[in-house]
């Protein structure tokens, strides 16, 4: 049903997979995600639909290895079946001609940023993208982002590529030189927190796409809840995009760490088992 059609490595830890899913390809809009489960012991994890091809009936996911489940997905080869794939989920991005857009993507957050940048550009916006990562090999999709942006600034923490510094420094540079009408922020929680503080300082309306822990992705469990503007919201059905200035990022970061010990243990066990398999 959901066969892997092609696979591409952006780096050792970041893989893009094109997967057969004709219904999802047709129904999806920018900002949507899917829930994916690999193997009968697998967990369900959320991944953004990076692009889709309606004619080929495929969607493309860009996955960064961070633990067991993302690892299992990156280990799928062309021809393998994804055990379970369901979507498209969440609310689509609100797209209109805002004027000038500042699109900020950190790490693997550039993958979900790509379809949004594409749509905003199509809607007539001027798009300035700032993409950032710890080092050169973690910068992904730069060419694709360039295709749909008027300008791209690349930042690395260690200065191994682009400009040296944090994403917020790249953002400030743009904000100081021209008027920004709308910002879009996607990346690790901590990056979104500081990026949101930066745009708030300059009164720039901003949306952030949140990456909370999810179980079902359909509003059934409440694992993904987050406080926005003092109210509890479910990221999977109300989001994943929210007004970045209203999100309680500290609470979100705290909730993301809820299962850290189990995750580390699971990953070690999995690696240990696959190593032994390799030996046998």
């Amino acid at each position: 049903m959901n066969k892997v059609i092609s696979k591409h490595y952006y780096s050792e830890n970041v893989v893009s997979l094109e997967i057969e899913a004709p219904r999802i390809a047709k129904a999806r809009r920018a900002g949507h995600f899917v829930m994916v489960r690999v193997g009968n012991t697998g967990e369900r994890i959320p991944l953004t639909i990076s692009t889709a091809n309606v004619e080929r009936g495929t969607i493309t996911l860009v996955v960064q290895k961070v633990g067991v489940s993302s690892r299992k997905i990156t280990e799928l080869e062309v021809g393998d079946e994804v055990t379970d794939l369901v979507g498209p989920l969440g609310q689509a991005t609100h797209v209109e001609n805002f004027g000038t857009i500042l699109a900020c993507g950190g790490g693997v957050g550039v993958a979900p940023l790509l379809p949004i940048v594409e749509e905003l550009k199509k809607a007539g916006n001027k798009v300035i993208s700032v993409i950032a990562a710890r080092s050169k090999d973690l910068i992904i999709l730069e060419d694709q982002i360039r295709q749909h942006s008027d300008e791209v600034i690349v930042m690395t923490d260690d200065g191994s590529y682009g400009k040296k510094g944090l994403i917020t420094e790249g953002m400030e540079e743009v904000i100081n030189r021209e008027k920004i009408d709308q910002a879009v922020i996607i990346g690790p929680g901590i990056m979104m927190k500081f990026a949101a503080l930066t745009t708030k300082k300059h009164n720039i309306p901003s949306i952030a796409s949140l990456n909370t822990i999810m179980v079902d992705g359909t509003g059934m469990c409440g694992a993904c809840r987050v406080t926005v503007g003092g109210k509890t919201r479910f990221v999977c059905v109300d989001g994943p995009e929210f007004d970045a200035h209203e999100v309680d990022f500290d609470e979100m970061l705290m909730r993301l760490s809820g299962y850290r010990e189990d995750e580390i243990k699971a990953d070690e066990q999995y690696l240990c088992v696959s190593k032994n398999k390799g030996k046998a």
Partner: protein
Amino acid sequence: TSLARVKMPEAPPIERARSYVEVNSGLTPEQAINEASRCIDCANPTCISGCPVEINIPKFVKNIERGEFLEAAKVLKETNALPAVCGRVCPQEKQCEASCFYQLKLNTEPVAIGYLERFAADFEQQSGKISIPEVAPSNGIKVAVIGSGPAGLAFAGDMAKLGYDVVILEALHEIGGVLKYGIPEFRLPNSIVDVEIESLRKMGVKFETNFIVGKTATIDDLREEGFKGFFVGSGAGLPRFMNIPGENLVGVLSSNEYLTRINLMGASSQGMDTPVVRGKKVAVIGGGNTAMDSVRTALRLGAEKVSIIYRRSLEEMPARVEEVKHAQEEGVEFLTLNNPVEYIGDDKGKVKQIRVQRMELGEPDSSGRRSPVAVDGSEYIIDADTVVVSVGVSPNPILPQSLPQLKVSRWGTIEVDPDTLQSSIPDIFAGGDIVRGGATVILAMGDGRKAAASMHQYLTNQTKK
């Protein structure tokens, strides 16, 4: 008739509270025959009207008495597609058994109809001689079922019998709805549900998982693909919270999340990737079946101390009487007439304490139950490292949101004609929790059957036109 009501053989509380073995082990044939002989085959069997799907109770019970167990199972299946499930989870004490002659007229213990139903259904499952209901020749008309809970399954069974081409579309990766992701193994083993689903498959019902109607495809898309009728049995899957301070701390979770992690994702078994919190001191908020299932699950995950915090008294608890009794036997503490007002976290944002308030019962509210009133100045603190919030669920909004023309109530339930279960859109029928807002397995199944009958009527009239 001087016989006393049979006692269900049970796994001993100390053993079962730490394992996933089914608590009730089922009657032996001798026990079943004896119990069946208590039924006096009333001329006017009041028990039948107590059953939402009107099972011919004396008929199946008398078959058991004669030792015709497979015949008994056949009688059950005439009106109930999931007897092995209902025999286990129906609140019999409020339904069939409450209307038994013994209870009504003699005020003594009713015939154990639920136990007997389970006995006959299990006997049939184990015999391998499962009778598959007769299916009419295909009429080539495609109908879609949205959601694979008991409402959808019952609807599908009846429509298949009538010769329709039935496809069940389910959002999750497993078939069964709450029967799979909600009710735990120690009360309703998944394998029991699977046998019943297999029967439907043999009747020609098709299943498609990972399909969210309203997202993966809309009703309009499905109409274009040739579906002529829709039954919505999408359930009441959304967890409610109380909106009190600290509810988003790590370690505070909904019973849906807790039970889904374990029952659907297998988080309590070795080798599964999905984790679950294993608290030492677990508090469960609420008094329904879901709360009982959560608190007893916590015990089985190795908690040292488990408590129910419920704002009314034991008498008002909506849970099945048997579940409350089992929970008490297993050592669950019941803090009734208590209500949480705040969760207190440690410096890492993890819950460590609950501020609780004592309650007393005041005047009856709209549900007829006496409503709880807070006692001023009664607040105190208890320790808890895991809190499971089990204070009710709301209708699943995904499908209604995708159909702006569909009439829904203030509470988000789909509005239907009470006689036909037809919604404001003629080719869409609905039943179960999405209409009732949280009820029981058997009521959901009754709705499924009723909707099948009226959709058949509707589609027959359509083709005549």
